């Protein structure tokens, strides 16, 4: 009951934020120097007369006052109609749907890998505090946190694609093959390098966080007591540490959707992977306003969903949070 209330409250807040996001982005775009008609016409600028341009503007309702335009746009979005993309010439929702699937595969692989490896690295470092392996892991994580994702992608590309020739240079699918005919193994093959890039960068945060949590736990009284009882090594961590450090790790990993999305934008650009990140860049560079606004909203929903899942898992799994809320 309480959990349901909690989730409901969070969702309500999300909806209010989404509405605000619509308003803010609409105002921003309205006052920007982007001319949607020009973005639509593109290279055919010379062949389109002034009257035709006005007709396009009228057809889109651009001659109406901004407030009316906003309500038309927002009303359509509530019905699930995000308009149509100018550069891909199909409904925004279709573009996003198709590309999000590709991006989700990429982000999902990277997310799972970085979560597992980051957690293990954090535990190893925390158990060996001050030793060489701890310092090595810490140094590695701090350095990775300072590494530009796209540069790491370029380095991997140079080593594995150009140098060793194991992987293709870019493109999500083989050249000269229709997208329907691409097999799953080919898709996976093209996924490896970008996913590897995101995973390598992704471990830093979770590893450092887990390490710190484990150190806190190991300094506690109950661990001291356990040690006095003769427990030590991995058994001690397994019995007394794991539960305490896994929850924050789960929350953190679900809260990392924002960075994950940003990282995938960069990785997709480096490896020419046809996902949502690449569409974001194209929409921005070529002034495709409907697509850009659609991506902004969808990515916000994505980030929120991550946070919400993290919260729900915590409130279901952690008895303290459950009790804490019911007593309030």
């Amino acid at each position, binding site marked *: 009951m309480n959990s349901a209330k909690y989730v409901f409250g969070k969702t309500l*807040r*999300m909806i*209010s*934020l989404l509405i*605000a*996001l619509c308003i*803010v*982005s609409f105002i*921003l*775009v309205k*006052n*920007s*120097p*982007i001319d949607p008609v020009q973005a639509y016409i593109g290279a055919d600028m010379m062949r389109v007369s002034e009257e035709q341009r006005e007709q396009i503007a009228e057809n889109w309702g651009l001659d109406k006052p901004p407030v009316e335009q906003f309500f038309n746009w927002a009303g359509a979005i509530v019905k699930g109609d995000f308009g149509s993309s100018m550069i891909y010439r199909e409904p925004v929702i279709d573009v996003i749907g198709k590309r999000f699937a590709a991006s989700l595969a990429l982000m999902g692989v990277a997310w799972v890998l970085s979560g597992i490896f980051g957690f293990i690295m954090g535990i190893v470092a925390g158990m060996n505090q001050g030793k060489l392996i701890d310092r090595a892991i810490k140094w590695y994580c*701090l*350095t990775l*946190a*300072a*590494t*530009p*994702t*796209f*540069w790491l992608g*370029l*380095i991997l*590309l*140079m080593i594995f694609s*150009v140098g060793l020739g194991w992987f293709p*240079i870019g493109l999500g699918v083989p050249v000269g093959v229709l997208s329907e005919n691409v097999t799953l193994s080919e898709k996976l093959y093209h996924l490896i390098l970008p996913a590897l890039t995101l995973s390598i960068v992704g471990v830093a945060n979770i590893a450092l966080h887990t390490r710190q949590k484990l150190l806190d736990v190991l300094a506690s009284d109950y661990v001291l007591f356990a040690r006095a009882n003769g427990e030590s090594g991995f058994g001690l961590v397994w019995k007394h540490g794991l539960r305490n450090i896994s929850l924050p790790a789960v929350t953190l990993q679900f809260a990392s*959707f*924002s*960075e994950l*999305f*940003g990282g995938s*934008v*960069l990785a997709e*650009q*480096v490896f020419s992977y046809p996902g949502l990140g690449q569409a*974001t*860049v194209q929409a*921005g*560079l070529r*002034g495709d306003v409907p697509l*850009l606004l659609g*991506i*902004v909203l969808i*990515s*916000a929903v*994505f*980030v*929120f969903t991550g946070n919400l899942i993290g919260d729900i898992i915590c409130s279901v799994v952690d008895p303290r949070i459950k009790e804490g809320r019911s007593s309030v």
Partner: protein
Amino acid sequence: MNGLSKAENNLFGGIIGSGSLHLQLNRRQKTLIVIGISSTLLIAIMIAAQLMSNQAIATNFSQQNLAPSWAHPFGTDWLGRDMFTRTIKGLSISIQIGLLASSVSVVIALVLGMCAATMGKKVDAAISWLVDLFMGVPHLVALVLIAVVFGGGAKGVIIGVALTHWPSLTRVIRAEVMQVRTSQYVQISRHLGRSRLWIATKHILPHLLPQFFVGLILIFPHAILHEAAITFLGFGLSPHSPAIGVILSESMGYLAAGMWWLAFFPGLSLLIIVRAFDVIGDNLRTLLDPHSAHE
């Protein structure tokens, strides 16, 4: 280090029993030295970028595509431009944009954090809602949106980077102000009849200054990385300016030809700069934080 500190060490060693006699420097001195080295590196890059002539990055077809050598430590590109000079100038641009953007972000965070903590529940709710709004959109997507609507180019990037780095620091400052405000000595001060302004400037502000400076330096690396990322994606500075993002995105076309140095060195330099800022920020926090200042 010198005679005095050694004597002090001996003194303390004598008192505590087993002091850190074997260490020649205490942690505070080490921290200061690390900060000094990192700062020197950054300042040296800024000065070097000003002193270097533009001749080295002019098109020079007699020196195309050279691998790294003593004359060209980072090699040259397909237009015969010296990559070392371009990298240093690019880093200098990055540092300047980073400085500007993080200053703006820190000021926004300071003002909003103070307001949230002192101006009542409604303002607090409004500001935490605003923070959630900004944190709800993936940072890079927000950057793209802002850079695009402000017309792209250097202006769009600077505005974008400056306007998106304040939310997390705002939360920190809000929590800090809340904590100081409810502490006993502030309550007593209020009961003694001190005005709100007096309390704000004499009690709260001194606590915020360390947060302010550390925040400024710790936002820096993020700002620089985001500037490079958005420039790499093609939104930022014009292709003629020697920004790191531009250099790396240009290099993509030449990787297949085996010209690894075009991407390797500029990116590595950026990594070192970002790391230098991280090191300064972390060490400064250790020094300024009363809990760890005397370790």
